[in-house]
């Protein structure tokens, strides 16, 4: 009898330990708070210290101090092969897109305007301009060749996008028909950041489509040597704006975003780490994280919530909230004056399970706070949430934005010819 009791106690002790692993490390864990971590059971929760493949990230409201739940990093651009460089701060760390895009109006970390002479990419002699599509805006601007340096990693002579209309004012109708061009940090249609560091699961920003001739070409790339600009058929995918990580000579198969857990009320500023490479160095092993492979076309996976499966889910550090389902499904009301966010009467603690195309699954605990009651002086919240009606084939789904990342190290595995794209945590 006594032996059985102590076995039972031992089991309980082990379970408690497993849950606490999701609670994060360091000073940001709140004692006794069950919502200290957005993800209840993550394999890794500590942040790597400074190294060649590690760069600092910060969640601090952005260059204008008004951008909640966005993580930023510094990126250095150099005229290829030279030490003529500028470092741009507050570039959005984005696992939901691919490619480095810098606002031509951004200032560097010393406050000086971007003044590097970066040559425009040429395709069959034609200088390239791109209209890249995002969910609520497009980015329009020239594709230029640059060295990209982050921490001790360098992508040499790769295509990035400079965003802004001043040099290329005649935006094609096909571009604005997909969305409104973002061209500034602030104001209407402002990005809220100095640029976007797209480090998602694809190696470039268009795949095979932009190399196809004729109607099969989605028409993202143009040359504006003529007026109007003409759609370009690229010769190869290497001419597309690249996921900078894919272009590193090493530590180039993916990344880890490492952010600490937050107190229930949030925080004004949080520091973390962005690690390059998965399983390439002693500081970037999977260490028991569950790999969820993604659909190779859509990058989607499935989320099960209260017994119902929803396809079309994805993990996106560039989304500034946990956006999932609808009021009709969850019973959580939208905020009266801001229907992009939920406003439950009190914070709700929920659980869901994510299922990869490979058949592996991982549970996730998360919280939904009343958006209107969030502390206006804070910039980081693990429970900022809203609806995601989705549809267009998939219906409502889960957009696991930055709140998912607090207290949970998230791996993004980049697709190769042999490896499927994946997220792991």
């Amino acid at each position, binding site marked *: 009898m006594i032996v059985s009791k102590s076995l039972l106690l031992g089991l309980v002790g082990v379970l408690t330990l497993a849950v606490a692993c999701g609670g994060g490390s360091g000073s940001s864990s709140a004692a006794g708070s069950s919502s200290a971590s957005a993800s209840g059971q993550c394999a890794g929760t500590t942040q790597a210290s400074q190294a060649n493949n590690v760069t600092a990230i910060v969640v601090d409201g952005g260059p204008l101090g008004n*951008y909640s739940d966005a993580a930023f990093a510094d990126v250095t651009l150099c005229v290829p092969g030279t030490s003529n460089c500028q470092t741009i701060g507050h570039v959005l760390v984005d696992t939901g897109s691919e490619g480095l895009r810098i606002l031509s109006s951004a200032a560097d970390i010393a406050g000086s305007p971007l003044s590097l002479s970066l040559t425009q990419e040429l395709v069959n002699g034609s200088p390239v301009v791109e209209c890249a*599509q995002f969910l*609520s805006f497009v980015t329009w601007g020239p594709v230029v060749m640059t060295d990209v340096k982050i921490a001790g990693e360098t992508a040499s002579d790769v295509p990035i996008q400079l965003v802004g209309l001043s040099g290329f004012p005649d935006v094609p109708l096909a571009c604005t028909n*997909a969305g409104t061009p973002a061209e500034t940090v602030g104001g209407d249609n402002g990005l809220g950041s100095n640029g976007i560091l797209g480090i998602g699961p694809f190696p470039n920003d268009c795949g095979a489509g932009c190399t196809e001739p004729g109607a099969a070409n989605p028409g993202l790339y143009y040359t504006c040597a003529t007026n109007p600009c003409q759609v370009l058929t690229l010769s190869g995918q290497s001419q597309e704006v690249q996921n900078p990580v894919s272009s590193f000579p090493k530590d180039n198969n993916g990344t880890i975003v490492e952010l600490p857990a937050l107190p229930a009320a949030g925080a004004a500023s949080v520091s973390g780490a962005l690690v390059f490479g998965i399983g390439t160095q002693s500081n970037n092993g999977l260490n028991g994280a569950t790999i969820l492979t993604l659909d190779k076309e859509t990058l989607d996976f499935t989320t099960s919530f209260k017994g119902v499966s929803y396809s079309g889910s*994805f993990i996106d550090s560039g989304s500034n909230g946990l956006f999932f389902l609808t009021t009709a499904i969850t019973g959580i009301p939208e905020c009266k004056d801001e229907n992009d966010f939920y406003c439950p009467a009190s914070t709700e603690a929920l659980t869901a399970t994510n299922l990869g195309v490979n058949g592996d699954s991982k549970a996730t605990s998360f919280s939904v706070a009343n958006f209107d009651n969030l502390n206006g002086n804070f910039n980081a919240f693990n429970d900022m949430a*809203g609806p995601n009606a*989705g549809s267009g*084939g998939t219906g409502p789904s889960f957009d696991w934005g930055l709140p998912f990342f607090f207290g949970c190290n998230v791996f993004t595995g980049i697709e190769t010819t042999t490896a499927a794209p994946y997220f792991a945590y």
Partner: protein
Amino acid sequence: MGWRLRKLPAGLLVLALSGSVWAELGGGLNSVQADQAQLQAKRQVLQAEGYSVHEMQAPSGTVVREYASPAGTVFGVTWNGPFIPDLRQLLGAQHFAEFQQAQQSRRPGRHPIDIEQPGLVVQMSGRPRSFHGRAYVPGLIPQGVEAAAIR
């Protein structure tokens, strides 16, 4: 393939770029059925209780569905695929302008689009190369048909 000017029965002029013309939200289906021959786009029609769904896939991969009343009025559209379709064409000039207007005063942040106005609903989700969206005019949904059917 190429540019082609086409005159519609109502006297409207439509610029038909192969593979990228759909009926606009609130418009009639007639124009699209007439253009189908030139489009080289796969088209399926599904009949449901009280409405029909006309599905087309653009050559670049995105699937567009148009939901039409028995009288042939398009009351809802959805899109699903790697690239955003021509929203001005899909929503029509008026609804497209309403859509752009509704996005003006947003705080910085990337999140799903959820525009719910009495005369227009536009909801979009996804990320680059994986967009899911729908738009409909609440007042045009036929009797007995749920908005949830538009997906």
